[in-house]
């Protein structure tokens, strides 16, 4: 039976990232003895939260040198924890911090790595499910090589419920940070657009397509009106903003279409594949937003003027054949009334 290590960094406050509890659910699906490995500036709150997690052991690397997310120190800490655990299967949440180092850690362990794991099963040995070709093809696979490092995608599992109880004992590993890195983390920066439009925890993903910048009934493009309508919906519904590639590329080509739109908003193709309970696509006519960008959106609706839109048909639950400008104006008014 494989010994399983749940490997994660801690947050700035020393607590667990939410995705770590989701990865814990995946770790439980493997079965086998569970060890938890934590690294970060401080691990105190994370350890306290692990009461009832069922871990046989908690290992930790902590200290100011390990507080910042950077490859050199994180990879060293994670590899030390994995080695000390003796685990043959290492599960980690696919946060940006763990994604930066997972493969490097596998290489240091002489093991193998697989990422974007959406399902872990233990029937006849550990097997995982993941996507290939930008969420177009799904494969189930297993490997003989160990240790096997697995990055579990956020949202693939519900957060593990912990029964509480006494915090487990912690074994702290001494790890010198000298010479591990030449990188200094200076801080975080929000996009220069000023308004935060990406909200990973939002219930609704609002996808804007290039149609928002095309000629309207007035005979000319109305980007200012479009901007007001889109931002109005984001504010009123607390939605997150996604965009088709064609729309963000317009912004990158010097056509200042929407000030708040950057490549970070793009879904599908060279963009993200976000997870939200609901998605509303407007003025999109391509495969990318409807297939790839929507792969992990549970309920999907679309508003566009093309009843025969081949990508919305079969991918959306409801396709409203209507003018998105007129619809969104009314939606915003109704949401404002509801307060």
């Amino acid at each position, binding site marked *: 039976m494989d010994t399983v290590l749940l490997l994660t960094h801690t947050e700035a406050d020393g607590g667990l990232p939410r995705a770590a509890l989701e990865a814990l659910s995946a770790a439980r699906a493997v079965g086998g003895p569970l060890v938890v490995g934590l690294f970060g500036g401080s691990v105190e709150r994370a350890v306290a939260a692990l009461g009832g997690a069922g871990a046989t052991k908690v290992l930790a690397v902590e200290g100011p040198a390990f507080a910042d*997310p*950077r*490859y050199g120190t994180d990879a060293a800490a994670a590899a030390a924890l994995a080695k000390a655990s003796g685990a043959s299967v290492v599960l980690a949440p696919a946060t*940006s911090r763990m994604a*930066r*180092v997972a*493969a*490097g850690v596998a*290489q*240091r362990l002489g093991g193998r*790595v697989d*990422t*974007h794991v959406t399902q872990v099963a233990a029937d006849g040995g550990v097997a995982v499910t993941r996507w*290939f*070709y*930008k969420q177009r*093809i799904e*494969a*189930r*696979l*297993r*490997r003989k*090589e160990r240790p096997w490092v697995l990055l579990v995608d956020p949202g693939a599992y519900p957060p593990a419920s912990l029964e509480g109880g006494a915090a487990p004992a912690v074994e702290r590993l001494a790890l010198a940070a000298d010479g591990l*890195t*030449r*990188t*200094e*983390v*200076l*801080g*975080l*920066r*929000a*996009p220069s657009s000023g308004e935060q439009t*990406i909200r*990973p925890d939002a*219930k609704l993903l609002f996808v804007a397509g290039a149609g928002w910048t095309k000629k309207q009934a007035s005979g000319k493009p109305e980007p200012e009106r479009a901007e007001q309508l889109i931002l109005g919906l984001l504010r009123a519904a607390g939605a997150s903003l996604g965009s088709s590639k064609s729309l963000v*590329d317009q912004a*990158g080509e010097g056509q200042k279409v929407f000030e708040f739109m950057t*490549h970070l908003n793009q879904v599908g*193709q060279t963009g993200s594949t976000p997870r939200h309970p*609901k998605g*509303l696509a407007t003025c999109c006519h391509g495969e*990318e937003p409807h297939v790839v960008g929507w792969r992990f959106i549970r309920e*999907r609706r679309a*508003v566009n003027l093309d*009843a025969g839109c081949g990508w*919305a*048909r079969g*991918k959306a*639950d409801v396709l*409203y054949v*209507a*003018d998105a400008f007129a*619809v969104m104006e*009314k*939606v915003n008014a*109704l*949401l404002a009334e*509801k307060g």
Partner: protein
Amino acid sequence: MSTGYQIVVLGSVVPDPLQTLEPAQTPQGPGLKNELMLPHVLDPWAAHALYEAANLAARTPGSKVTLVSLGPKAKLQQVMMAVGQKVPFELVALDGPAGGFTDPHEVAARLAETVKALPGLDRSRLLLFGGWESASRGAGVTLQLVGERLEIADQFQGVDRLTPGEGGSFEVLERVEGGKHQVSRCAGAPAVLGWATGELGEPKNNPQIGMANMRGVMPALQKAAPAPVGTGGVEFLSVAVPRAQRETRIVKDMSPDDVARELVEWIGQD
């Protein structure tokens, strides 16, 4: 003494992202139906890395861009005809499969050997660029694995900007959660940078660049070393396109007011 960066971009070819893909079983493991018939492009994120590399090299005198690409020679030739028109680079080609089901550890071993063997490689000037993920395997691990094999301890993923600073240092913007960037300063090369989209548009075709590139691309393709990478120790239990056809309700005759009311009700439901 030489100055500037030696920028090595790792990137290969992928089926055009707008193609419909179907898996197929081959003697070498899973693959795509009619894989070699599909139109291919340079992997989109790797293409961003290449454009950023060329831009950085143009701003930093003495720099050189080398594109190391592992893929089927015939497909590489087709794709390089288009990519070669965009920015100046030197190609080092490896002839092998570029499909998404190949094992990244095998691919990384080949790429690392090739980078180590580049003539005149100077680690103190080396920036290893690539896409932070591919549009084929989409794992985001190959670049890291190559970096580890080259013992490079400063790595960045999801990079959107690199700004050279004083004394060889540079500032990096990496994508992190919540649509934010983490800002870091690295003391200098060597470093690994896995690019997201960056900030540059696709360069326009430039016939002069194309002519100059082609003088090196064709010989590089002719002497491409075989790189028969496989699926490693992976056992594929199933490979399939998910059957996710939804019954779409098409609403044609509803007024914008009624559509809005229905949407607001839907948005409000738990």
